[in-house]
């Protein structure tokens, strides 16, 4: 939330003619309203309030929630407080150089074709792509909303012209977003589809991670993300029957999910809210009991506990050691329902300061077994232990991202301006191998390209320069040497390959269901463009 630009509040549903509406007129980037100065706006609230005040003056009946339409709550632009900036980039230091690097990235590495296919669900441009809103964050801090592109090439062209440091993806509308002002009736311009998205941000784990805080992450606390992905991915597939779930590293300290099944894309807000609430377990902010779930446990929760229990032992108790201090241990004690047991534990722990969390956790059962009075309620103790496990492992979601169809989210494969890392997709079948700190950065990609040129020889490199679309050109490959796209020469390769296969599966599925739909609509035969492409 902290980098929410104060002025980007144009919601087509609620506010039609705000200052930001003009920003969409691409030619006039200089007139665009600027987001709040990031460094001078460290607190989430102050930013939000400011946005609210500005809008409230303009038009009174604007609802607060609408003000935040399309503002990605994602981390990623703001600088951490107190100047403790982790891994500070070569990029931001010298803006001129960074723009040149960025240009090289968009020209040579960004997977245009697969991005297009991903959003278009077909090789031929459809309204899924043509009516899709993109928002471009420029280097002068302007944000251009309601951009749209008829083809992949025009998308690429505009990005290269404007060189946005960030691209966000919004919903598909009933009409071309660029034409939205021509509709007097707001019903004619409505968002109709967008992937169901989830956002996990490690700052939401600050009260339970001991290794890092704020924008910092390491491989220890990244495990929380791994756990969250496992739980959500499993539930989205098994419970809701979704198949096309893309997990994307947000570039610094979090991860996004894009559920791309047609059924997910067309969910109404009401249903997005229902799914979000289905997943919600951790309640409230600090203090008090944060997990309150009904018993008997819902199957989703008992399954989640099965998924999480080993992580709890290893990644939380052993590695994070969350109750080492007596203050934190006291917090744990407060969750133990039996007062006698609580006192016995406190006495034991007071006598051995700094006792490891793993031992403390084991103490609970050990002392419970020796309960002399026999008055201990084993059920409620088990419930309490499950609640604790959930509190320390269960996914913490930024629900605003998931609840609304017209929320914008940062695109995969953009470069995080703070870390220089590419926002790469994560292979869920290889989750434990993913190392966020080893994700390719833009300078590294450029270096790798140079190294490749040295080792593979100049001739192949020359051929590859021709190919700038991020993919091999299929039709003209009768030559001896098939040109190698630049991304294949770098550590970006496995990520783009993963994305490519994800998109291919999605398109195949989409085509099959399109054919099936036609068959089902008995008598009402329509020929769809997507089914003609074989």
């Amino acid at each position, binding site marked *: 939330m902290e980098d929410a630009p104060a002025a980007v509040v144009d919601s087509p549903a609620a506010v039609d003619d705000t200052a930001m509406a003009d920003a969409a007129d691409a030619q006039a980037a200089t007139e665009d309203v600027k987001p709040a100065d990031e460094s001078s706006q460290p607190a989430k609230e102050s930013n939000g309030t400011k946005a609210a005040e500005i809008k409230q003056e303009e038009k009174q009946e604007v609802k607060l929630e609408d003000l935040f339409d399309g503002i990605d709550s994602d981390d990623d632009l703001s600088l951490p407080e107190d100047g403790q900036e982790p891994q500070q980039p070569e990029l931001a230091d010298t803006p001129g150089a960074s723009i040149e690097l960025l240009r090289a990235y968009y020209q040579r590495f960004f997977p245009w074709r697969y991005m297009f296919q991903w959003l278009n669900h077909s090789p031929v441009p459809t309204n899924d792509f043509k009516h899709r809103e993109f928002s471009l964050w420029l280097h002068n801090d302007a944000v251009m909303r309601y951009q749209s592109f008829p083809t992949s090439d025009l998308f690429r062209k505009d990005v290269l012209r404007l060189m946005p440091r960030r691209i966000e993806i919004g919903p598909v509308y009933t009409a071309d977003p660029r034409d939205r002002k021509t509709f007097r009736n707001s019903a004619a311009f409505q968002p109709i589809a967008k992937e169901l998205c989830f956002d996990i941000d490690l700052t939401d784990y600050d009260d339970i991670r001991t290794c890092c805080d704020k924008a910092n992450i390491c491989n220890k606390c990244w495990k929380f993300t791994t756990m969250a992905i496992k739980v959500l991915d499993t539930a989205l597939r098994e419970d809701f029957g979704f198949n096309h779930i893309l997990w994307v590293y947000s570039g610094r300290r979090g991860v996004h999910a894009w559920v791309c099944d047609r059924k997910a894309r067309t969910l109404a807000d009401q249903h997005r*809210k*229902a799914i979000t609430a289905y997943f919600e377990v951790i309640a409230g902010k600090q203090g008090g009991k944060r997990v309150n779930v*009904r018993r008997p446990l*819902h199957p989703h929760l008992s399954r989640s506990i099965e998924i999480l229990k080993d992580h709890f032992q290893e990644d939380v108790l052993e590695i994070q050691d969350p109750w080492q201090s007596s203050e934190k241990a006291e917090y744990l004690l407060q969750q133990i329902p039996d007062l006698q047991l609580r006192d016995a534990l406190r006495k034991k722990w007071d006598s051995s300061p700094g006792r490891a969390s793993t031992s403390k956790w084991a103490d609970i059962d050990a002392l419970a077994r020796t309960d002399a009075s026999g008055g201990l309620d084993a059920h409620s103790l088990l419930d309490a232990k499950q609640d604790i496990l959930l509190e320390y492992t269960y996914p913490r979601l930024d629900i605003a991202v998931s609840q609304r169809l017209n929320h914008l989210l940062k695109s995969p494969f953009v470069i995080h301006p703070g870390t220089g890392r590419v926002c790469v997709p994560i292979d869920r079948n290889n989750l434990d191998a993913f190392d966020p700190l080893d994700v390719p950065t833009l300078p590294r990609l450029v270096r790798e390209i140079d190294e490749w040129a040295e080792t593979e020889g100049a001739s192949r490199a020359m051929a590859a320069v021709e190919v700038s679309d991020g993919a091999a050109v299929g039709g003209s490959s009768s030559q001896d040497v098939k040109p190698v796209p630049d991304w294949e020469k770098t550590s970006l390769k496995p990520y783009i390959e993963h994305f490519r296969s994800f998109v291919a599966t999605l398109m195949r599925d989409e085509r099959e269901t399109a054919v099936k739909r036609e068959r089902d609509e008995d008598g009402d035969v329509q020929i769809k463009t997507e089914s003609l492409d074989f």
Partner: protein
Amino acid sequence: MNRIDIKRTKVLDHRKKQFADPSYKDTEYPHRLNFYSTPPTADITLEQFEQWAMDRLRILAELEACSFRNKTPAETAVHMKPLLEKYLPLDSTSSNSSELNIQRQRDHYSHFILRLAFASTEDLRRRFTRVETMLFRLRFQADDSRERAAFVRSLNLDWEPVSEEEKRELAPLLATTIGFGHGRRAQQVMDEEWCKVDWMRVPDLTEGRKVYIRAGKAYVPAREQQSMVLNAYTKRLEQALELTSRALPRLDEDDRLTPILDHLSKSFIAPDASYTGSGTAIDGAEITAGNMDNLSQHFPMCMSNLHRSLRRDAHLKHFGRLQYTLFLKGIGLNLEECLIFWRSSFRNITDDTFNKDYRYNVQHAYGQVGGDMNRRGGGYSPFSCQKILTERAPGSGEAHGCPYRHFSLDNLTALLRASGVTDRGVLQGVKEDTDSQKFHMACNRVFEHLHHTELKRAKDDGIMTAAQLDTIVHPNEYFKRSYQLKNMDGRSKQKQEGDIKMEG
């Protein structure tokens, strides 16, 4: 699915049929409940059109008030019962009432008329859907269980029953969704009837993890099926209202309906009421200029604030005088007394000034002067809450308007305290009401607090029926009810108090 045989259950009432319009025969009402999928076709009179719609609107407004007051479903049902019997009765088929068909026709028609009135804006559509769903739920729950089952079957909701085999296979998982207790859970699963539906059909059950969901299908136990029916109802109504809103422009051509629909939709923004009572409506009250200080204890805040301002400043500005004069007229103060009242209240001005600047306006309000229209209509009507809330907010130095809407919280609290409302819970409630723009609810809350003892007695002794105790939406109704409640023992006590006051 067993489709119910319409012929078998149709109600034959030959007496009614005789008088009915020919096309009337086309609409049959086999069930008490109605999903309103078929628009009415028969002609009705303009009077019926308006009356039926107003009656239904009254019910809907009251239901909305119940939800504003966080009444539980059970409390709401009790509160609504007499009102429903009065304004929108709907008997079960088994009652064999001779009124069945006309009741169902009124229900059917009034629903569709209000659709027209409330389709125009998204806000109205949302509110209408919400309260109509509340009404439907209330009736659904109260319905005879066999008739309800027949109705549900007639909807053809396409629910896939869960086979015994699948039930057995999933028993441990399904058991977690039907409640607590250990032990005989598997048996409970087998005893229950389950159906499978797309989870999107039951968003509220999904949201609360109240059902087991697998591969996009929610497993719903029979006891939760109400939620699905309600969802289906809401969804269909939402869609229908969308369609209606698009068809609305064509209706504009019918200039007989437009003003009625317009008035109806306004009434939903803030419940409207016209006050027809006159002085004679309140037995034994001494409505005179000299008794106003005493009577002002029964005034709602909007009027008691005007009274206080008048006493403090010996003056009121134009719109304050208008609002107050009409209120006084409404409680039964005649023109002569009213003129005395104003004259004596404006104690810092001369007779001359009064006659020149003020007398005419008072007379005009009473319909004694002015154009024919004004005279024939008896002057203006007393302002309703809706009018006070929505028209002409007070500027500086003006005392009219509604304190719940137009005062700062500090000033409102001071006024309430001065009027004897010191209970923190009540003040907090008022704050919440006004924060959420439910101004008339705040006023009713204060009324209920100030008349707590009397209300309880009136209800217990059956002196006032629930229908007489519904939400107040007119200042004059506030006065009348307050006066009656405080004088249940007859007028002697009131007389005494009045006398004492006048002496002092």
